[in-house]
């Protein structure tokens, strides 16, 4: 595919590049995150995103603030160092603790509020089950913004269109893993088949709990994070503190579902969503 000099290869063993279609996504294991922000930079580099220029926030080491039109990976920093008496602990629970760092990203929801709200058809679900805003279709109406329970898409000041993570769609089509996952030095960001990642997340949580990390849990299944009609996330997380600590909603809901609730009987909605689910399986 590419000319290679000096023994380089564009794709290799890490992260199982997407050679076959199917649901692909991320497992972001915060217990392995060192808050280095390589993911933020690798994402910007690959996707040609400019700096945000927010300035110094004084909010721990977070100076990019939030996911947005030009920040598609964002590392959240939460300092929970001292106990209530102000005592700093010396012996810590295994892996990341007390200074929590989480690399946030578009969740590529199984049922994506943004996509469902988009009136122009700009937002599509790809053959990898990722959710992509097609820039040549988007008219910048902004309907997708409130429709996302996680506040992911944002309208760019530059081109007036909505932007967010594409799961590196252009890389996936060529069998390359997404830039953030590739760069991550500690494998906090793992890329692969959702099924595999889901198993890995479950095992990881079990292993963490065995080692004394009692708060370890998966964020992004249908109970926590992928709830409320979302049907689970294709980018999910292993967390060690309640989701709210990371500024993540515990039980997000599709806004569409909230409105549905008022008008229709649950059974009726179930028919609709059942149908939606049927169609969403179209690629399998």
């Amino acid at each position, binding site marked *: *595919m*590419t*000319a*290679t*000099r*000096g*023994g*380089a*290869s*564009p*794709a*290799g063993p*890490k992260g199982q590049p997407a050679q076959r279609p199917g649901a692909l996504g991320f497992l972001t294991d915060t217990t392995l995150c060192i808050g*280095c*922000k*390589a993911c*933020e*930079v*690798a994402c910007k*580099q690959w996707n040609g995103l400019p700096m945000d220029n927010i300035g110094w926030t004084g909010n721990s080491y977070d100076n990019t603030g939030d996911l947005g039109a030009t920040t598609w990976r964002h590392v959240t920093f939460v300092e929970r160092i001292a106990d209530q008496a102000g005592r700093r602990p010396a012996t810590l629970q295994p892996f990341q603790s007390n200074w929590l760092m989480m690399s946030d990203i578009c969740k590529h929801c199984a*049922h*994506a509020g943004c*996509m*469902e*709200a*988009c009136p122009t*058809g*700009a*937002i*599509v*679900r*790809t053959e990898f089950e990722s959710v*992509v805003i*097609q*820039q*040549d*279709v988007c008219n910048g109406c902004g309907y997708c913004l409130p*429709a996302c329970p996680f506040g992911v898409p944002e309208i760019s000041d530059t081109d007036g269109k909505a932007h967010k993570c594409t799961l590196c*769609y*252009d*890389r996936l*089509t*060529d069998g*390359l893993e997404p*830039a953030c996952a*590739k*760069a*991550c*030095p500690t494998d906090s960001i793992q890329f692969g088949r959702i099924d595999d990642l889901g198993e890995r997340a479950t095992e990881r949580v079990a292993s963490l709990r065995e080692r004394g990390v009692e708060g370890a849990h998966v964020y992004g299944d249908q109970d926590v994070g992928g709830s409320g009609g979302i049907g689970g996330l294709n980018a999910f997380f292993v967390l060690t503190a309640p989701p709210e600590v990371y500024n993540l909603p515990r039980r997000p809901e599709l806004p*569409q579902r909230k*409105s549905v609730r008022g008008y*229709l009987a649950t059974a009726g909605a179930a028919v*609709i*969503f059942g*149908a*939606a*689910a049927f*169609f*969403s399986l*179209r690629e399998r």
Partner: protein
Amino acid sequence: MGLGKLGKLLGTHVGMVPNPVSQRTREARSRLRGASATVSVCPYCAVGCSQVVYTKDERVIDVEGNYESPINGGTLCPKGAATAGLMGSPLRVTTVKYRAPHSDHWEDRTLDWAMGRIAQLVKETRDVTYEARNQQSVPVNRTLGIGHLGGATLDNEENYLIKKLFSAGLGIVAVENQARI
């Protein structure tokens, strides 16, 4: 399209009727197609991450970690991941700047002029400050009039040439780098 209509009413039309895939989406491919790949080493810290620099038409289009490295295995830190940004830095200096003594502004000069001027200054300073012997008439062949700083971010071969030219060739002894910084 009955369902579609209902879906639209409820805001769930997508999923029942897939949105059309645009031409741009259909044609989306990695820009690494057709690129040349060159193996480099990250210029920042001393971990020694191997990088692959992708180029097209003599321009850098991407820098990533090299999967084959036993050290970084394809990964990079934020600085390493910004290497393409360093190389293409909008603020990068690409022309020679010259500030005359007591001046309050930069001037543009040619590289050739600067090289000639620097060589001349080195010779003048060296000739004035050169010590062939010290006060005890021990042969020393040195000058304290010129110093050098830097090396830890250069190449080994360049460090070799610095020491060889400056110390062995010109007698400059105050040659130092960041190892003590």
